[in-house]
């Protein structure tokens, strides 16, 4: 009975701490790493920020696949710089995540063991040069819609990382659209290549904005913590509304027979998304799930002796410094 009483007091205290915490976020104050936070807030943030970081570095691979084959020197340096930015963004996000008390190595372990998720779209293959255009245009386009609201999310380090990411990413989508534009102004073969890329990337790009609202589990809590400002369906509608006119300018056809502008709503109506495909890819049955993870894992495992060498060297130097001081 006595213990029960103590527990009640603790629960009461916890509840009031949480209320103060939630009120702080509601007032648009930021939460910093050393501030008190509910365990659930910490865990949710570790999950979301690390997923985001993993998506950046796995996302390097499908585009990296075309660096050595880029068709001009200008395209090659632009693509290299873009993929390099993604490494940088992964790095900023891992760092933000590390402020919550988890190491980059632990986060990598989660990725390599398949425990952690990353954006499913990177499990699709890049088959032609036009795919590099389509990824920049559609995938980065969808990512920007997701990311811009995160610049004002409640967790300080995440918000600051996102400000940097969004600033740097502004060239990525333009880079992709310019590639598409060049193809669409080119030969019939190039136009066909562009259309083929749109056909293959359109639906995965729509899926990238997440399951429909009634299937999405974390939305309400995420809204409160400003991890989300709009629902998945709202974001998807926004993406379609802004992307369809861009496809029109290219003279490409969006591969959706049901796509039609609705004068009453002021939005595009669109066809059914194949969610079965989405969940299959999430579960690991996409064309490239295995390659992507093994590429990341190989890079890390093959780098172990390099990282160890640098640490050993640093230790030896530090010892030398101590001896010299004596």
């Amino acid at each position, binding site marked *: 009975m006595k213990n029960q009483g103590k527990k009640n007091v603790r629960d009461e205290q916890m509840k009031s701490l949480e209320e103060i915490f939630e009120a702080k976020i509601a007032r648009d104050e930021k939460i*910093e790493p*050393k501030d008190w936070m509910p365990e659930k807030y910490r865990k949710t943030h570790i999950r979301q920020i690390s997923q985001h970081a993993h998506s950046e570095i796995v996302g390097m691979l499908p585009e990296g696949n075309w660096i050595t084959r880029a068709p001009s020197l200008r395209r090659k340096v632009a693509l290299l710089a873009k993929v390099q*930015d993604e490494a940088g963004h992964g790095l900023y996000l891992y760092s933000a995540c*590390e402020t919550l008390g988890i190491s980059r190595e632990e986060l990598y372990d989660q990725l390599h063991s398949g425990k952690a998720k990353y954006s499913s779209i990177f499990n699709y293959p890049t088959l032609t040069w036009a795919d590099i255009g389509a990824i920049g245009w559609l995938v980065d386009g969808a990512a920007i819609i997701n990311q811009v609201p995160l610049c004002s999310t409640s967790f300080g380090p995440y918000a600051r990382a996102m400000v940097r990411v969004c600033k740097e990413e502004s060239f990525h989508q333009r880079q992709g659209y310019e590639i598409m534009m060049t193809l669409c102004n080119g030969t019939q073969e190039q136009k066909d290549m562009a259309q083929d890329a749109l056909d293959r990337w359109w639906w995965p790009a729509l899926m990238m904005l997440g399951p429909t609202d009634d299937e999405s589990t974390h939305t309400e809590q995420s809204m409160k913590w400003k991890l989300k400002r709009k629902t998945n369906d709202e974001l998807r509608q926004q993406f379609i509304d802004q992307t369809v006119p861009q496809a029109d300018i290219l003279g490409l056809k969006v591969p959706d027979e049901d796509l039609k502008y609705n004068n009453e709503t002021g939005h595009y109506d669109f066809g059914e998304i194949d969610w079965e495909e989405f969940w299959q890819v999430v579960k690991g049955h996409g064309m490239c799930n295995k390659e992507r993870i093994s590429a990341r894992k190989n890079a890390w495992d093959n780098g172990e002796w390099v990282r*160890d060498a640098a640490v050993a060297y640093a230790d030896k130097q530090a010892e030398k410094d101590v001896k010299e001081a004596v």
Partner: protein
Amino acid sequence: MSKKNWPLWEVFVRSKNGLEHRHFGSLHAPDADMALKNARDVYTRRSEGVSIWVVESKNIKASNPDDNGEMFEPAADKAYRHPTFYELPDDIEHM
């Protein structure tokens, strides 16, 4: 996993002369030299800086937010440290 991981460093960058170094972010590096080089490659790719400091994160002693009451609130009622505390006639100049 590596036997010993690269430690974490905090990166401070001066954007241009005349401005202070500002915290830009962090990174992992085996030693101070490499941390500086990595900071150059990670944080100044778009000409963001003219000077970089790196400090190993474990060497930073941070105040505890739980102590914020005693640390920072006592300064709140010392309005006499601010110029607006002092009442002067409106038409006085150069003050």
